[in-house]
């Protein structure tokens, strides 16, 4: 069966709601409209207005009430309409969703899933194309995952909803229409395990979410140059599978991290810091970073220059190999 990432996530929500009536889906326009990306399509008509509902236009309200619902005993799945509209909810995400369990000494459990369509590449510009994952990864108490394939879309959303910890699912919106030939439901290894998507011997490409496809394309293109790239899909950004990264770098001696977020304190910084610490003597070149620039997200017509792409990755591969 051909399934897009959006369909896979839709199916994950449907299956989770069917299996457990404590699962609630809500956010802006997720009900009747089915979400601006149609990821929640059909949920309201199937499960009713009490299980899938539109909220007032207030992101702090969405996350804050999700917390209250979770304390009551529900398993809320909240949608933030776009990456750039998560910021009004920052206080609730960072001070409460992330920390209430710890604050309560383990008494309160918050099985909340927050779905965030993120990243660029759809010609939409500021607020609609941002990659805020660093903010969540730096925040203790959050689990942050990002699927790079339709099967991971299904599996990770199911795993997030099943988790008793709050989980932020960063959904690469430019890949919503990416197809895979799979039978749903699928299973997958737990999200905290990174996966080698393609084996290689020269350089490890560490990536996640929207950049998995790009990294695979780069590996393909690199072959022509005679370079063998290993593509490691992190899948979970927090926790991060440091062991898998280190194991790969120990084989290749070189690593490049790819992400859309700006470079400074983008995830690549943490990967680099960990790799140089854990594989110091294995590194034959510094860990390099193929990322967005440290500027605000550009206007749509310029995003192609801003976003990391195959060329930017290959430039760095060349630089890495030159060490």
């Amino acid at each position, binding site marked *: 069966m051909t399934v897009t990432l959006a369909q896979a996530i839709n199916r994950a929500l449907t299956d989770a709601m069917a299996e457990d009536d404590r699962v609630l889906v809500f956010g*802006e*326009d997720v009900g009747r409209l089915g979400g*601006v990306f149609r990821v929640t399509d059909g949920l309201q008509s199937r499960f009713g207005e009490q299980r899938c509902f539109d909220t007032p236009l207030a992101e702090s309200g969405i996350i804050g009430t999700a917390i209250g619902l979770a304390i009551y005993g529900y398993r809320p799945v909240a949608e933030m309409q776009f990456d750039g509209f998560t910021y009004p909810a920052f206080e609730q995400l960072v001070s409460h969703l992330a920390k209430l369990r710890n604050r309560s000494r383990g008494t309160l459990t918050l099985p909340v899933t927050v779905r965030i369509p993120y990243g660029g590449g759809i010609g939409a510009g500021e607020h609609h194309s941002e990659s805020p994952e660093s903010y969540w990864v730096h925040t203790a108490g959050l689990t942050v995952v990002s699927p790079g394939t339709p099967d991971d879309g299904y599996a990770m959303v199911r795993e997030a909803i099943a988790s008793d910890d709050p989980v932020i699912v960063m959904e690469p919106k430019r890949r919503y229409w990416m197809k895979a030939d799979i039978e749903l439901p699928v299973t997958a290894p737990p999200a905290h395990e990174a996966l080698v998507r393609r084996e290689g011997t020269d350089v490890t490409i560490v990536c996640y979410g929207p950049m998995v496809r790009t990294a695979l394309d780069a590996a393909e293109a690199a072959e022509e140059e005679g370079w063998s790239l290993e593509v490691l899909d992190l899948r979970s950004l927090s926790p991060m599978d440091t062991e898998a990264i280190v194991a790969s770098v120990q084989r290749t001696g070189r690593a490049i991290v790819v992400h859309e977020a700006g470079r400074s304190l983008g995830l690549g910084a943490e990967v680099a810091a960990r790799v140089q610490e854990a594989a110091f003597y294995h590194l034959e070149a510094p860990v390099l970073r193929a990322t967005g620039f440290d*500027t605000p997200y550009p*206007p749509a017509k310029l995003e192609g220059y801003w976003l990391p792409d195959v060329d930017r990755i290959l430039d760095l591969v060349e630089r890495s190999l030159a060490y």
Partner: protein
Amino acid sequence: MVDDLQRAGSGQLDPTSLLPPAEPVHLLDPDGTLHEDPDHPVGLDDAALLELHRTMIITRRVDREAINLQRQGQLGVYASCLGQEAAQVASAWALQDEDWIFPSYRELGAAIVRDVDPADLLHLFRGTWLSDHDPYEHRFALLSIPIGTQALHATGFAMGARFDDNPIVTVVYFGDGGTSEGDPHEAMTFAGVMRAPVVFFVQNNQYAISVPLAKQTAAPTLAHKAIGYGLPGYRCDGNDPLATYAVTRRAVERARAGHGPALIEALTYRMEAHTTSDDPSRYRSDEELEAAALTDPIVRLRNHLRNRDLLDDATERRFEEEAAERAQAVRDAIYDAPHGDPLELFDHVYVAPRADLAAQRDELRAELARREDDDGGAA
């Protein structure tokens, strides 16, 4: 009356004077009949009425052009103001030239009143650049996408004007959905306490994308929110250009006179999809749309002008022609407009030069050079 309203907040007067009247102010019937109201004098001469009409016609025409441009792949997305021309044009008309407007993303009509070149706004939707007009030249702030956030900017600006004894007023536009966000709440709180000369103009077009007003708030009306900040709450038929003008003018002049901020709820209807990416058939019926069409603001003023013999066929044709020219100018400016210099992405982030950004700029420059080489090599 202005003074009465002012004193209400300080407990000197019955606070219920801050509540909106039971019915929104309405002066012009759909057939053009004018009901004068001594509390809401219009005070526009015939020439001004014609100008208002002309501006609404231009707005509608340029708006349609933008939709067409989007359909033709020239814009990524566009948020139409069809049906909201009176709410925008007549309210902006009520300002003095020095007053500032803080729009959301839908205020083409207000922008045209302020002589902002529509093409400059559309560059945001095309993705050429994030904005392309000078806010100071037009006293028209940037379009604002994150809902309601600009209400605080308008309030801070108005605080500044008050501190500076500058008798200007700011007007901030946001939608029915926007009233739910925290920022407009905080803005009205600050404005009330600081007596900032700001008018909060809510275009209640009944929807926030697909979410109807009844799911947005349980308030009796949006204007009932004002009293919670010590502001008077006004309501007007937002498809009635004369009522909108009169009510806005009253609130603006009250603020200018130092009597503080106000909230206006203008009742209107979003005739188009939320944006060109939206599919409203999923959440509203044709019947609803047809009923709303009967309240069209442009037809209404046209009927009035026709009834009073102020508008003849020739003038009307002239307006339509001018509107078509404006639309064509927008089209010419937008169609296949080349993208800007990618290196400019580094130019406006900071005033002070930064070594780190300069280095990244060099990286991009090198990438561009390599791309050119590659293209050159391929050719």
